[in-house]
């Protein structure tokens, strides 16, 4: 049996050692290659001083090394912290500090950029990059990344499934990104459940284009390795490259976010001219698929099953709409995934009737352990199961999503909006305060508030309301340029409006609903 994430690879290796497991550019690795490298990596980290439960960051572009560092960290009894390669050094430093990181896997360029922004010596025990024979930076040992994958040593594993496997950083409505803690058992349950309803078997060839720091992206690699399937990774600039890859590699499954599907549905992608008989299913997550895009995909891919999914990192995966329901309710996020119960609860704490708007509450084996180092926030999101028998006490925690939904008569769920001010754009969760803080840092404003504006392609785009200092005539362009220098592109507002003052609530806080009303929302 396998209880830990890297043990899934061991099992698949026992079943089919020569089966193609991982493909990236011209590298093609069998399960036996993958397992050997993962074990070697785990032992290397242990030799570098990694203790059970310590955190190792992964800050790499999509690559074989990026994928294998995940399982290799687990094999060394560590916890992996995947980071999007698009984030900037200052955001990496936040994560490094927040999760008290022990080691980092990155490139030499990225490491040098991080060193430049650090106040003191790096706080890590070790860092792995492609550099050879590189001297230590302060007390941080440097290890060659390729060497780490190619020792013949075996790690000593003492973890059990209750141990932490990963911390996924995600944004909420306030403050900086927070790390959602997931155990081996929770990620494994997510993989088993998704494999069940997507019908994933060893025949699958899955194309991974979503980042692994995103729960749906991580789940793709987990399902592939759990089911002894093949995973193809790629970098892309043009949607057309994805279509070519789907064809060339006879891909059977692809997960995407609405932005990706919008790109694929445009004529330049050549999706409509490329027959893809192997493509068995596609899945959408990270926001609602625009209806015209959905119609176009159905036209281009008549043989392909389309699954609309919904999930939040705090509970890993929550609902899906079975493809046979797409005709009758294309705007629904579906029903609970297997082995999971979704409750819709009103302000009084009672289950909602059909049509009544309430909060989506998730109960099941993929509910996370909450936010690393933020017990108060965790207690807001993870609360005792309200309908448990008193004898069960407060043992079981369920996840209060903050998403407002309603049910139809047959129990299908429809997304209405957020309870808080969190923005969701091109699949990313964005905290308004994180954007506002950057706008303030330009030094020429006395007030800033950002809201999400509905956007056909992105789900939402960001609009900033700014109050300038008395003597300032800073322009929209200058504010946007400043944001772009300090924030990844998906967090940069698309529009700025200058106001004389921001609307305030009686308690003196920014009145976000008033700003939304201004926009007719």
């Amino acid at each position, binding site marked *: 049996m396998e209880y830990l994430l890297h043990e899934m690879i061991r099992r698949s290796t026992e079943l089919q050692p020569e089966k193609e497991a991982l493909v990236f550019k011209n590298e093609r690795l069998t399960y036996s290659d993958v397992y050997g490298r993962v074990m070697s990596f785990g032992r290397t980290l242990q030799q570098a001083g990694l203790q059970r439960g310590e955190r190792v960051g992964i800050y790499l572009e999509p690559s074989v090394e990026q994928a294998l560092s995940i399982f290799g960290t687990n094999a060394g009894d560590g916890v992996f912290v995947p980071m999007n390669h698009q984030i900037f050094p200052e955001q990496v430093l936040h994560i490094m500090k927040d999760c008290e990181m022990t080691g980092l896997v990155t490139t030499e360029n990225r490491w040098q950029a991080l060193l430049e922004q650090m106040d003191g010596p790096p706080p890590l025990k070790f860092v792995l990059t492609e550099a050879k024979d590189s001297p230590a930076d302060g007390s941080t040992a440097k290890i060659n990344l390729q060497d780490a994958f190619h020792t013949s040593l075996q790690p000593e594993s003492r973890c059990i499934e209750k141990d932490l496997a990963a911390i996924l950083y995600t944004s909420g409505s306030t403050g900086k990104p927070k790390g959602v803690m997931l155990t081996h058992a929770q990620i494994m349950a997510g993989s088993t459940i998704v494999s069940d309803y997507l019908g994933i078997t060893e025949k699958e060839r899955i194309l991974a284009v979503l980042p692994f720091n995103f729960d749906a992206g991580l789940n793709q690699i987990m399902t592939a390795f759990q089911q002894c399937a093949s995973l193809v990774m790629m970098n892309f600039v043009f949607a057309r*490259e994805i279509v070519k890859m789907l064809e060339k590699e006879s891909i059977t499954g692809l997960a995407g976010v609405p932005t990706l599907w919008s790109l694929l549905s445009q004529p330049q992608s050549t999706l409509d001219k490329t027959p893809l008989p192997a493509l068995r299913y596609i899945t959408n997550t990270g926001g609602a698929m625009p209806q015209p895009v959905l119609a176009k995909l159905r036209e281009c891919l008549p043989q392909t099953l389309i699954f609309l999914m919904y999930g939040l990192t705090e509970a890993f995966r929550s609902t899906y709409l079975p493809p046979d329901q797409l005709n009758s309710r294309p705007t629904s996020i579906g029903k609970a995934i297997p082995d999971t119960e979704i409750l819709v609860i009103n302000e009084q704490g009672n289950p909602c009737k059909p049509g009544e708007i309430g909060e989506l509450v998730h109960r099941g084996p993929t509910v996370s352990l909450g936010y690393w180092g933020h017990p108060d926030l965790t207690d807001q999101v993870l609360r005792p199961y309200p309908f448990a028998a008193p004898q069960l006490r407060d043992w079981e925690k369920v996840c209060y999503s903050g998403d407002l939904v309603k049910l139809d008569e047959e129990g299908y769920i429809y997304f209405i909006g957020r309870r808080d001010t969190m923005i969701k754009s091109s699949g990313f969760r964005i905290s308004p305060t994180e954007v506002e803080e950057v706008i303030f840092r330009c030094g020429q404003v006395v007030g800033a508030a950002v809201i999400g504006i509905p956007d056909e392609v992105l789900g939402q785009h960001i609009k900033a309301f700014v109050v300038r200092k008395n003597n300032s005539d800073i322009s929209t362009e200058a504010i946007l340029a400043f944001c772009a220098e300090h924030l990844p*592109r998906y967090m940069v507002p698309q529009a700025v409006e200058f106001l004389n003052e921001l609307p305030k609530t009686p308690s003196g806080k920014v009145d976000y609903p008033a700003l939304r009303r201004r926009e007719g929302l």
Partner: protein
Amino acid sequence: MPQQTIITSIRTFISGNFPAVRKRKLEDTDPLLQSGIIDSMGILDLVEHLETTFDISVADDDLVPENFDSIENIAAFVEKKQNQHQSV
């Protein structure tokens, strides 16, 4: 149009629309795509800009990263398309 004019025009568009470049000194040969300066949404804006500014038509087959991964390569691509246009 001589190549230097094309380069200047492309550079102006990129610094205007992708302000992340202002932080670093952008050479004509610096990677634009790998470095995350231009993402897959942004590249479509760039293609549209090239089509209207230089009166070229970018075909599906032209949409490969090699044509767009530096200012120099974009300029070379534009020149190639302009020459094709004239010879037709």
